[in-house]
């Protein structure tokens, strides 16, 4: 029962932390795409709120900028996807052109679908009732769902198209939305940005990290702060559960501790037993809780895609350590109670 109490506390904390992480990861897709610098129309606040239009046909000139290894034209805008019930869902759609010979990292390949295919966020897929292989008609274009992507949530969802459909669905004639610049190894991003802006009049440069943060702010300014409070509450409630569990387990064993005192155990001997037991319970409970969290996060995300979770190793290790530490600290809660145990109680039937 004690182990179960600690496991429940760890489950509670980890689920809330993973929810926080999951929603914090909004925009993390930018860190997976190739390229470090986004050339956008001047005045672009962020990709979500602003429409960026730049003249097409500048890729070759940008490719000659010192430090630029590759230039990828990007078409992007909000696009309405049909939902199963007849409604429509808004997603931020991008189509990234990759000139022949551009090295695409393995983790970025899912964002470069073949012609006629689309990669949509799993949250959007759940809303639209589609899965890989499903067919969608978007603004008269027939698209096959290539695979499901991650990084979206109830507020922001991403979709990726092939440039062939991207130009038709997202682009303006003679315009691209962005130029994504891949920096050569060792190149100075600052110098590259300045030189690139000079090549495309009316443009400004943003790093991928800045765009990722812009998306993250969409969530963090509202919902994430609420989840942050929940994380705090989770830790307090989890800590209280662990403390109460340890206290209850000690009180339940009061007679056994009385027996130990009666047969000559010193106070420090009894404390050592309580601390040792708490440590073991903390370890076992934390391990059980972590396993339960992994299963629960997966199950919940499958059933409720909007419940975006990201169970990270660093969080698992942190919560594991915190749970064990809390168990040890909690073992000092019943010290007063242990002190009051009268060893003569063992003579009472």
């Amino acid at each position, binding site marked *: 029962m004690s182990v179960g109490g600690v496991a429940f506390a760890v489950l509670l904390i980890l689920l809330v932390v993973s929810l926080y992480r999951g929603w914090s990861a909004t925009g993390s897709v930018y860190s997976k795409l190739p390229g470090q610098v986004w050339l956008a129309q001047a005045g672009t606040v962020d990709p979500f709120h602003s429409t960026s239009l730049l003249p097409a046909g500048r890729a070759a000139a940008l490719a000659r900028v010192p430090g630029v290894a590759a230039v990828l034209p990007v078409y992007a805008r909000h696009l309405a996807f049909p939902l199963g019930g007849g409604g429509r869902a808004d997603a931020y759609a991008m189509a990234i052109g990759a000139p022949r010979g551009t090295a695409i990292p393995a983790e970025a390949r899912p964002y470069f679908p073949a012609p006629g295919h689309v990669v949509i966020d799993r949250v959007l897929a759940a809303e639209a009732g589609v899965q890989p292989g499903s067919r969608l008609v978007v603004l008269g274009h027939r698209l096959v769902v290539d695979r499901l992507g991650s990084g979206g949530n109830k507020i922001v969802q991403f979709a990726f198209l092939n440039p062939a459909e991207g130009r038709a669905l997202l682009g303006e004639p003679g315009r691209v939305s962005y130029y994504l610049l891949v920096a050569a190894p060792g190149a100075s991003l600052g110098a590259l940005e300045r030189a690139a802006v000079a090549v495309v009049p009316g443009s400004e440069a943003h790093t991928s990290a800045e765009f990722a943060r812009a998306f993250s702010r969409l969530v963090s300014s509202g919902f994430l702060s609420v989840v942050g409070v929940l994380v705090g509450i989770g830790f307090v409630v989890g800590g209280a559960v662990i403390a109460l569990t340890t206290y209850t387990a000690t009180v339940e064993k009061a007679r056994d501790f009385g027996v130990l005192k009666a047969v000559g155990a010193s106070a420090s001997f009894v404390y050592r037993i309580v601390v040792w037991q708490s440590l073991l319970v903390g370890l076992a409970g934390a391990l059980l809780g972590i396993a339960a969290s992994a299963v629960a996060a997966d199950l919940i995300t499958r059933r409720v895609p909007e419940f975006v979770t990201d169970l990270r190793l660093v969080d698992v290790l942190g919560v594991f350590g915190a749970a064990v530490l809390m168990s040890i600290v909690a073992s000092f809660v019943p010290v007063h109670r242990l002190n009051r145990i009268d060893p003569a109680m*063992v003579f009472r*039937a």
Partner: protein
Amino acid sequence: MTELLRVVGLTKVFGSGRTEVVAVDGVDLTSDRGEITLVMGPSGSGKTTLLTMIGCLLRPTSGRVLIDGLDVTALPSREQPRIRRTLVGFVFQTFNLLDSLSALENVEVALNIAGVKGSAAAARARALLLEAGLEGRLDFPASALSAGERQRVAIARALANGPPLLLADEPTANLDSRHGREVMDLLRALALGEDRGAVVVSHDERLRAIADRIVRLEDGRIRRIAERRTAAA
């Protein structure tokens, strides 16, 4: 025989004023090595209170308890646990074993408390349990043992650290006649086997058979002390 226990003017008063109760009133008692002293008396006569004071579980209001010449009542409270693990061993009416532990572990715990650890503790505990006739029961959880077996484990635990004085509170009260007889014989054999002494508190008339001295306690006072020859008569 040499004197092991001397109780001088031992008194315990609970409460004060109108709620004052004198549980033990000026008891004088001696018990020698190799001797079992049986304290009998009706319920509420102060038997258990007397035993808890001798065993350093309860501070007397006045009087002294000397075990092996050491005035344990003069020692500070922090010294009492040391006395309980070195000079006295307890056997309880309700056994008071740790149910989640095995028979062997119950005895080992008592040794651990006294600083004996690992294989030394295991070997000592095993030897005591075998001596108590518990072959084949060493690894049984205490909760899975019969009442008689549990009391045998309790006796082994009481003797684990080789205390000179064994204190038993109604050791046969929860046992049927056969197991009661076995425990009595074990007490007699083990309690006195290593030049120990024992004070046994009980209502059980059968225990007269193993007693060397019988003390009759009523209203906290000693009414009569009978030596074995007298008791048997």
